[in-house]
């Protein structure tokens, strides 16, 4: 308690020097929380969007399905049994049949993944209800990226060609019934959605599906289907966020180092200038290591003041930012990212940042303070430089 009181008094007494150190450290503290809060907010929104648009609570894959291997896709389908059909009917499962096809927009040729999905599904946010109601041609839904790449809009018609289960080419005309705007590029680029039953008919694969999207909270295993949980399905996104955090750590570390260097410098100067005070402490009955403790606490107390100062301007800033979000406009960076990101400040993030700043400050305060343990108190009392 004595040490804390003394530290507080000395820090306040040091005036401008203390406030400069504290300001830099508080800026580092707020920036670390801001940066990680933005990444966490992006992560949360991206996970939520990906779940809502693509994976729900997980997917059951045909054992041969590999979304990165177009050659295996054509054989990755199997009939749905009665149990699955029951779940599809009650809306807890959404089957999808996926095959490769080719479209010819404005005479160009473009490979696409053709996905059949029940028009009445409500598990995913895809506007599949638009797959009903178009009277001319086969209704299809595409995303804005696909629409841009293929120069297609609502009401446009495009020729599509595919191979059925026997390898026979067939073709028809698609009518774009809807163009959806999703923040999840993986459901958009190079993909066309048509009605599930229509696609089964086109492919001659009545009753078959490639994968099943589940909305069940605790999905059970199903024979003949490989269950892929959220962790697996969102692994790429998690890795991306982690890599972004890794890059941010460099910037945060540099800023934190500058702040810590200032504290270190202040500590060295303080010990150099306050030799007589150190000697007095020892004469009054403190051991040398207790004096080391007093100076370490004093240096580390910079971090407490920095946290208080950071909170003073950081909390209003974070609340404001959380209310308006940070807009990135319509920039498409090819990864799942909302146009406006709302930062997320978890208790864990704040506590871990506080612990990091306090421990780092304590260490840089302790390093120069160790010198006190080797000081001769009689020399210190005279104020002699040792």
């Amino acid at each position, binding site marked *: 308690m004595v040490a804390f009181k003394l530290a507080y008094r000395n820090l306040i007494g040091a005036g401008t020097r203390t406030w400069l150190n504290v300001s830099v450290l508080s800026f580092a503290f707020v920036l670390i929380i801001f940066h990680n809060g933005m990444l966490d907010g992006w992560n949360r929104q991206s996970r939520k969007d990906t779940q809502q648009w693509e994976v729900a609570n997980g997917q059951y894959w045909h054992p041969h399905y590999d979304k990165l291997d177009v050659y295996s896709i054509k054989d990755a389908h199997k009939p749905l049994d009665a149990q699955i059909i029951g779940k599809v009917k009650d809306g807890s499962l959404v089957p999808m049949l996926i095959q490769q096809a080719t479209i010819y927009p404005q005479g160009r040729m473009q490979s696409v993944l053709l996905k059949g999905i029940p028009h009445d599904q409500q598990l995913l946010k895809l506007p599949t209800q638009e797959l009903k109601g178009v009277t001319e041609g086969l209704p299809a839904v595409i995303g804005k990226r696909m629409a841009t790449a293929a120069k297609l809009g609502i009401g446009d018609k495009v020729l599509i060609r595919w191979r059925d289960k026997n390898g026979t080419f067939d073709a028809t005309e698609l009518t774009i019934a809807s163009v959806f705007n999703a923040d999840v590029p993986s459901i958009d680029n190079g993909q066309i959605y048509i009605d599930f039953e229509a696609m089964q008919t086109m492919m001659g694969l009545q009753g078959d599906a490639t994968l099943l999207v589940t909305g069940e909270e605790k999905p059970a295993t199903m024979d003949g289907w490989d269950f892929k949980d959220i962790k697996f399905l969102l692994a790429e996104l998690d890795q991306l966020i982690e890599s972004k955090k890794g890059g941010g750590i460099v910037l945060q570390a540099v800023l934190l180092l500058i702040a810590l260097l200032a504290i270190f410098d202040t500590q060295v100067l303080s010990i150099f200038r306050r030799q007589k005070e150190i000697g007095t402490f020892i004469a009054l*009955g403190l*051991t040398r290591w*207790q004096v080391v403790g007093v100076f370490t606490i004093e240096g580390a107390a910079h971090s407490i003041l920095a946290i208080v100062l950071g909170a003073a301007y950081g909390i209003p800033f974070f609340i404001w930012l959380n209310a308006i979000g940070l807009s990135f406009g319509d920039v498409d960076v090819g990864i799942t990212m909302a146009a406006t990101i709302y930062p997320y400040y978890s208790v864990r993030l704040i506590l871990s940042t506080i612990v990091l700043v306090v421990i780092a400050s304590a260490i840089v305060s302790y390093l120069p303070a160790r010198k006190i343990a080797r000081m*001769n108190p*009689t020399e210190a009392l005279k104020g002699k430089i040792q």
Partner: protein
Amino acid sequence: MVKRIVVDDIIFQDMDNQIIQLEHLTKRFPVGNGFFTALTDINLSFGKGEFAGLVGPSGSGKTTLLNIIGSLDVPSEGKATVLGRSIAELSQKQAANMRNHHIGFIFQTYNLLPVYTVYENVEFALLLQNISAEERRKAVMQALEWVGLTDKEKSKPSMLSGGECQRVAIARSMVKRPKIVLADEPTANLDSKNSHHILQTMQKLNEELGVTFIFSTHDEKVMQYLKRQISLADGKVVADEQVELVSSQ
């Protein structure tokens, strides 16, 4: 004013009340490749309630001797026993504990903590002991009363005169009711009036509380108050005199 009379050249020793014993004490400091001998074969004893002074010019070893008695330093040879404990054998913690409970220091430059108030400076020594806040308050106020600074308890050292600062230092050294107070040139930075005020305060505390005061000084004003005067020269005791103080009036 007081008059000083030398009554005895022999060291007064009340063996039952001895609280400091220095036997064949020598202190050397490393200087370059050799050593500088600051004290040579010192043999002294101090009894309870003494008001003694180590007198001599700069470099005679007065402060070094005070530092050893105060367990801030250890002898190179010989033995220093303070309150029944050999200084050389004390651990850092034991030495700190002895200083905290039994030894008060008064320095030439006061050495007050600049960020603390007068009250907090005096209280500091008690904070290291297990004393309740109420008892601390009582002890601090009493110490400030001894030195006549109760009205300055909230002042910072920077707001006080030199004499007042030294009185705070006296209160700080006395607040824990130590057995020994070591005063290193306590009047060197004070004018004549303040010097006498300080010395009279210490004399009063010595008489009322029975605390042993040992001064290091070459100030004539201090010498006038000493009951025992130990003269040092080149690290050796050259005289040890008991004096009787008689009012000149």
